[in-house]
């Protein structure tokens, strides 16, 4: 037995690494998601607030000048986490029609919440392959175009709002479920009550979806108002309020 144990020890660390990595990337992405929403929703305070936050992330207040490449860098890191997480999680998805059928039959027959919820988790995860990638690619390639007008124009004149609308639901449901599953998977907090945790999960999704919808509405509103000037960049002097 010892030799086989040695063999496993030699090449066998990967399953543990991958499992931890799947959880860790998920946790990081969920954390990012929350920060991101806080950032995006600053538009609800004022255009200036959002502008300030955007410039902050470009390093303006630390470095003295804006460096949109920093945003690209962040987007690149997030994209990397995203790809790694997707690749790791993909291992758990049904591999073929047979497995998919087995799961669906099981879930339908069993009528068990945590089993059915996983179907949603998997489906939203699958959708994120596309939705998330498109969004992240945009941020990666055009990092400078983040600002009250720039973002609003992207949403409205750039016809991105339908994608964002879907992405919002998908990502917040996935994130909520993912965090819920993570807490149960590692039993942290230790012995946490599942009913409470499930309520928390729902609250998470509802809260962020609501915040997202309201924020998206704000961008749409600005986007419509600014449609004639689409492409024009926002400066503190140009706020819609000041027009």
């Amino acid at each position: 037995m010892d030799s086989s144990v040695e063999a496993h020890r030699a090449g066998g660390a990967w399953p543990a690494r991958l499992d931890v990595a799947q959880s860790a990337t998920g946790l990081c992405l969920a954390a990012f998601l929350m920060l991101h929403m806080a950032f995006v929703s600053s538009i609800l305070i004022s255009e200036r607030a959002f502008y300030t936050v955007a410039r902050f992330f470009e390093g303006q207040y630390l470095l003295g000048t804006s460096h949109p490449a920093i945003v690209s860098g962040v987007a690149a890191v997030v994209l990397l986490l995203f790809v790694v997480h997707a690749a790791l999680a993909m291992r758990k998805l049904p591999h073929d029609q047979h497995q998919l059928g087995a799961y669906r039959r099981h879930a339908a027959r069993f009528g068990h919440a945590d089993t059915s919820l996983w179907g949603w988790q998997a489906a939203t995860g699958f959708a994120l392959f596309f939705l998330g990638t498109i969004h992240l690619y945009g941020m990666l390639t055009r990092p400078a175009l983040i600002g009250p007008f720039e973002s609003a124009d992207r949403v409205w004149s750039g016809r991105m709002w339908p994608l964002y609308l879907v992405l919002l639901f998908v990502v917040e449901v996935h994130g909520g479920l993912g965090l819920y599953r993570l807490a149960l998977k590692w039993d942290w907090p230790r012995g946490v009550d599942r009913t409470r945790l499930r309520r928390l999960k729902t609250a998470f999704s509802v809260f962020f979806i609501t915040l997202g919808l309201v924020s998206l509405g704000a961008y749409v509103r600005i986007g419509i108002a600014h449609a004639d000037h689409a492409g024009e960049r926002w400066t503190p002097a140009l706020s819609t309020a000041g027009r």
Partner: protein
Amino acid sequence: MSAPTPRRLTIHILRSAPGDDATPHFEAFRIDESEGMTLFIALNEIRANLDPSLQFDFVCRAGICGSCGMLINGRPGLACSTLTHDLGTEFTLAPLPVFAVIGDLSVDTGRWMRAMSERLETWIHATTDADLDAVEPRMEPALAEAIYEADRCIECGCCIAACGTAQMRPDFVGAVGLNKIARFRLDPRDEREDADHYALVGNDDGVFGCMTLLGCHDVCPKGLSLRSQIAYLRRGMAAQGLR
């Protein structure tokens, strides 16, 4: 005083006989409910009066031996300790999925469990035989009780039948297997170390394959805390793998 009219039960049973050409199909049986009727009593009544060829497995009929796991309205459970009173007047019974069907409600859990035991070596590994004449080695009372918590598993197969992963991946050891390793990890009489445990369950057919759908935890007839046992094992195995 006249007895109240008993309920008339309609029980839909999934019939099959491997080897016969007929595809599995539901057959309805109608019987009068008696007071305190369990599915053990109901099925025996059907066999005695309606269809002597009906196959099912009971041994202890007291919820102790784990023979009579089946899907009761799609949910895995022990038939012997299920009262018809707790079901509607119409319900379905089907064999546990994942396991090979012997016929009707009878499945071969024995072969599956033996294979699992051999694969995970579910026994105490000690290099020396105990001295039977000497006073037994001491053990903390609380530890003995903690071991028994996990040792109460009756290998009924309900956790496997309730596991989304096990439906999709036949090599997954399931909660029953993971709980065994958790049990032997606790036991100081077993000289195996975490490296050995990792060699057995440190992969996607083992603890890292568990997606925390918790069907196992929710259906376990003995009420084992499978969620925390598996999480505890996952943490240990992750730590071992990352070491």
